[in-house]
């Protein structure tokens, strides 16, 4: 920690004494112990927010049940958004106020995999929902690089202010994505997924001016259905 050096200290003291009689110098190095009182910290234990443990505690008990209850059929949702974007958002979306608002949708679908595209490390599958017409109508990211924070932002009970700071909030998004990969992607053989029928629960973020064609779903649960 910085401390006043000699001449600087003296000059500062003189100025403070002469000019601001009420001025008090607070040593920066002085650590105040955080009590349980008015000024609680986000990191009460001193070890900080533990993202992985938190994900462990919510995944089965809170997160998946909310998706099972609230996820809307993908085709129904996209049809609604195409017909009347604002009405679709109001009916099915969760609006996140962050300067410019964005919207998060929890979705479910049953579809056939048309293509597994791993030309980017952010690999995706393109799928065709029932009724199958041979044209891909949704994109799901399957990694290994997983982008975005859709899972984290998809439920109201996860709030930035409760988690702490930006790093912890970001860590949480990463851990949620990781958990999804371990539970839902790793067990699947992507190399022969083309042609298979899948069932998924997932989420996507839609920005204010974003085209519906640019939507990429982050799965939460992804299963191959037996033929």
């Amino acid at each position, binding site marked *: 920690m*910085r401390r*006043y*050096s000699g001449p*600087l200290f003296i*000059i*500062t003291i003189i*100025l*403070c004494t002469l*000019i*601001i009689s*009420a*001025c*008090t*110098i*607070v040593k*920066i190095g*002085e650590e*105040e112990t*955080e009590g349980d009182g*008015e*000024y*609680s*910290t*986000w*990191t009460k234990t001193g070890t900080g927010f533990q993202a992985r443990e938190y994900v462990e505690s919510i995944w089965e008990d809170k997160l998946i049940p909310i998706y099972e209850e609230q996820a809307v059929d993908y085709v129904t949702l996209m049809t609604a958004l195409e017909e009347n974007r604002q009405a679709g958002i109001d009916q099915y979306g969760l609006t996140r106020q*962050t*300067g*410019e608002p*964005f919207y998060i949708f929890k979705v479910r679908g049953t579809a056939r995999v048309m293509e597994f595209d791993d030309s*980017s*490390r952010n690999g995706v599958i393109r799928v065709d929902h029932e009724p199958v017409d041979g044209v891909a109508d949704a994109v799901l990211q399957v990694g*290994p*690089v997983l*982008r975005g*924070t859709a899972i984290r932002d998809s439920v109201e009970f996860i*709030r*930035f*202010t*409760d988690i*702490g*700071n*930006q*790093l912890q*909030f*970001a860590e949480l998004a*990463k851990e949620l994505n990781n958990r999804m990969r371990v539970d839902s992607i790793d067990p699947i053989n992507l190399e022969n997924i083309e042609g298979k029928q899948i069932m998924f629960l997932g989420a996507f973020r839609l920005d204010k001016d974003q085209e519906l064609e640019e939507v990429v779903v982050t799965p939460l649960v992804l299963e191959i259905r037996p033929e």
Partner: protein
Amino acid sequence: MFKKLIVIVLVLMVPAGFLFANGGSGAESSNLMVIITPDKDNTFFTAEADAAKAMAESLGYETLMVVHGDDPNAESDIIDTAISQKAVAIIIDIANADASPNNLRRATDAGIPVFCMDREINVAGIAKAQLISDNFQGAQLGGEYFVELMGEKGNWVELVGKESDTNAGVRSQGYHSIIDQYPDMKMVARETANWSQTEAFADVESILQANPDVKGIICGNDTMALGAQAAAEAAGKGDIIVMGFDGNDNVLDSMLQGKIAGTVMQPNALNAEMAVQLADKFIKTGSTGMDQEKILNGCFLIKPSDADKWRGFKKL
């Protein structure tokens, strides 16, 4: 040392002038918002200060504009001034995440509500509200675009901001959280250029001599991006992909000229305006009306095709 001394003397002169002018006592019914920002030279911070000032004045407040120069001691002195002036609110972009909470606590103990913008503090219950740009999310957007422009492979360089500024570390981690997932992206140099255009120029000049095959440079802010791009151009390597962060007007102009490849727009003016609006609401009603202290405002990726749609950190 001399520079530090100047900063402290200057900061002390501000309260001195005020005290002499007002005879040493704050008015009983003060209408003063004290608006504290880090720096007078960086357009990012001047835009933030200007946005806060304009909003405060439009709501009928007097303003006192002060900078702390990233010095917690200077910040401490400014807080004392605000207390002695019986300010109705303090709007601040803090000096240091570790030291500032204690400074701010003195203000709240004296009954002055504090509203943070831009940089966050990690102690709950001091600020009435914190309006924060989502630097990590912004850095991830920048990192993703950088990777895309690089074709997911090649040698790259990172220029990091001032170490004492939390956001320098947050952005760097945001970049790495994306880029490090691509094994063919090879970081050949990582230097701090302290948010400075001239330091960035010098750093990149020497980095390019040692590493002639650099394909991209990602920077923690826009001023460093301007320095990096100029150095690349001077070395005859104007095609190096340079990414910035902030969204300042000079970089937007550079993008329109086909030089800098992209930047991340911070909702800087919005944070400042919202901080003042929430302060005003708190002064009038005793509550900000928000259900959370920390309010995270998202950043936007700006590609060259969008560079003419923003000015002064605002969407046109």
